[in-house]
C-alpha cells in the first residue's frame, strides 16, 4: 500500500516541480551571492554564505523553513486524501478490503517521506552548490564562532532533520483537514494559515510565555547549534513541542476518517 501511494504521488508534475524548486532555489541563491554585491555589515547566514560551502545550506534552511518548506509539506499532506476524494478514487480504495487505518498510515508515511525528502534535498543542493562556489572551509557563524568542517557537517545534518521535524505539526494539521474534506486547497490553506498566524503572533513580544507554545516558535532553534556556547535546549523544546500538536491533529483526523461517510 505504501508503494502504491508512493507511485501515485511521485510520478507527477507537482512532485517534479517541487524537486526542481528544492534543487534550483539553493543554486539560484548561491549564484546571487557569488556574483552579487557583498554587503559586509550584515551578520546573518546569508552574509556569511560566501565564507564556506557549508554556510550555504544554513542560509538556504533559514530562508526556506519559514515559508517554502511549510507550503511544500502542507501540499503533500493536505492533498493526500482530499485529492483522491476529489478524483473519486477514494471510494474505490475503500471498496477494497483494506482497512481505513492502513490507508491513513500509508498516506501519512508517504506525505512525511516527501516532506522530509524536500528538506534534505534543499540542504544537499545548497551544500553542493555552495562548495563548488565558495570551497570547503571551516564555517563562520553570525556571532563570530568558527566550526571545523567535520563538526559543521554533523550540526548541519542534525539541523536538517530538526527543520524537517518542525514541519510535523503542519503536516499533521494538513493531513487532518485532508481526511475531512475533498478540497485540497482547504487543507493546504488551513495548515499554512496556522503556520502564518503562529509566526505573526510569535512576533508580538507582549504575548510573553504563551509564545513558547506556538507551533512555529522554535523553528529556528537549530541556529543555536552554531552559537558559542552551543545551546540546544530550545531545540529540545522544539522537538517536544511538536508532539502534542501531532498527537492532537492525527487523533482527530484518524477518528474522523474512520467514522466518515464516504459521499464522494
Amino acid at each position, binding site marked *: *500500500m505504501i*508503494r*502504491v501511494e508512493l*507511485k*501515485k504521488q511521485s*510520478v*507527477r*508534475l507537482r512532485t517534479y516541480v517541487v524537486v526542481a524548486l528544492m534543487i534550483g532555489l539553493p543554486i539560484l541563491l548561491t549564484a546571487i551571492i557569488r556574483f552579487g554585491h557583498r554587503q559586509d555589515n550584515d551578520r546573518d547566514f546569508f552574509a556569511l554564505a560566501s565564507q564556506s560551502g557549508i554556510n550555504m545550506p544554513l542560509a538556504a534552511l533559514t530562508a526556506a523553513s519559514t515559508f517554502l518548506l511549510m507550503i511544500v509539506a502542507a501540499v503533500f499532506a493536505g492533498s493526500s486524501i482530499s485529492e*483522491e476524494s476529489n*478524483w*473519486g*478514487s*477514494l*471510494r*474505490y*480504495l*475503500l*471498496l*477494497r*478490503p*483494506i*482497512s*481505513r487505518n492502513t490507508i491513513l498510515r500509508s498516506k501519512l508515511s508517504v506525505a512525511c517521506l516527501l516532506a522530509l525528502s524536500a528538506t534534505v534535498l534543499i540542504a544537499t543542493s545548497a551544500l553542493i552548490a555552495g562548495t563548488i562556489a565558495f570551497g570547503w572551509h571551516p564555517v563562520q557563524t553570525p556571532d563570530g564562532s568558527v566550526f571545523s568542517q567535520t563538526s559543521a557537517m554533523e550540526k548541519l545534518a542534525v539541523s536538517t532533520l530538526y527543520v524537517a521535524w518542525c514541519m510535523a505539526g503542519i503536516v499533521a494539521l494538513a493531513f487532518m483537514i485532508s481526511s475531512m474534506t475533498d478540497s485540497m486547497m482547504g487543507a493546504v490553506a488551513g495548515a499554512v494559515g496556522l503556520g502564518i498566524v503562529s509566526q505573526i503572533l510569535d512576533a508580538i513580544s507582549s504575548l510573553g510565555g504563551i509564545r513558547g507554545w506556538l507551533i512555529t516558535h522554535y523553528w529556528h532553534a537549530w541556529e543555536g547549534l552554531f552559537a558559542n556556547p552551543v545551546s540546544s535546549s530550545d531545540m529540545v523544546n522544539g522537538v517536544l513541542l511538536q508532539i502534542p500538536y501531532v498527537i492532537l491533529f492525527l487523533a482527530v483526523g484518524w477518528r474522523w476518517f*474512520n*467514522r466518515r*461517510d*464516504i*459521499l464522494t
Partner: protein
Amino acid sequence: MAIQEAAPVPAPATGSAPIRLVNLTKRFGEGVLAVDNLSLEVEQGMVFGLLGPNGAGKTTALRMMLGLIYPTSGESYLFGELMRPSSKVLSRVGCLVEGPGFVPHLSGIENLRLYWTSTGSRWEDANIDEALAIADLGNAIHRKVRTYSKGMTQRLGLAQVLLNKPELLVLDEPTIGLDPGEMRDVRDLVRRLSATGATVLLSSHILAEVEQICTHAAIINRGRLVVTGTVDSLIGETGTVYLEVDDVDRALAVLKSVPGVPAAEPEPPGISIALSERQRQEVVAALVNAGVGVRTVMPRRRLEDAFIGIVEGEPE
C-alpha cells in the same frame, strides 16, 4: 397490474445470499431520511435492477450496502457477512458506484495495477485479459486517464470491476456516457457474467435496459422500497400499446363496441390502450374491419409505465 406489495423481509440471518439488507436506514444530520427501513434480498444468480427517480436513495443505499456509509440503523449482509467498512468480503465484489474514479496523472493500466496491488495482491493474479477486453482501449490504456473521454473512463471503470472475477457485481448506472454499441457490450457482459453464476445488482434510470437484462427489480422512492419482484411481475401481463390510426375519433368509437377492452386514450395521431397480447390482434382486426386505417402498432416501454404508475401513485 399484478404487483406484489413490498413485504418486510424476515430478520433472521438465513443462508448467505449475496445481498441481504435488513431495515437499512440512513438519516443525514437532522434532515430527511435518505433511506428508510429498506429490506431487500438478492439471491445468487439474479440480475437485480434497482430503480427509482433521482434522489430516491439508490446510491445512498448502495454505498451503505458496501460499507462506504454508516447506516443510522439496520444492517447489510454480503454473502452472509455483516458489512463493515473494508470487510474482507469485498474481495468477492466488484463495484462501480456513481461513475469511475481514477488518478488522472497515471495511465489506465497503471490505475488498474495500483487498484489491484493496493491490497498486496499480485498483479499476475488479476483477471487482466477480460478486464482489458471490456475496456477496449487499445494503446490508449497507456495514456494518462486525464486524456480519456467520458466513455473511455467508464469502460476503464468496468474493467476495474472485473479484475477480481467478482461473484457479485454492483453496477451503478453502468452505461452512463456510453454510446449505443458500448451499451450493448455492457448488457452482453452482464448476461455473460450472470450465465457463469455471478450475481448482479444494477441501478439504472434506463428502464428499457433493466427490462432487457434484469430478472428481478425493486423500485425505490423517497428512500423506501415500493415494490420488488421479478421484472415480469412488475410489468404485469398487460402492456400499453400505441396505435397510430387515420381517424382517432372513429377508432375510439369502434373500440367502445369491442367487448373486454378497456377504454382507450386519444393521443393524436393515434390512441393508446392497455391490452394483453391476445387482445392486440382482436383490436387491430376490429379497427380494420370498421374501415379505420392502422399505420403502426407499437408496444410502449412497459416497465416505464409500471414505474411511473407506481412512483406517481405513491402518497406524498
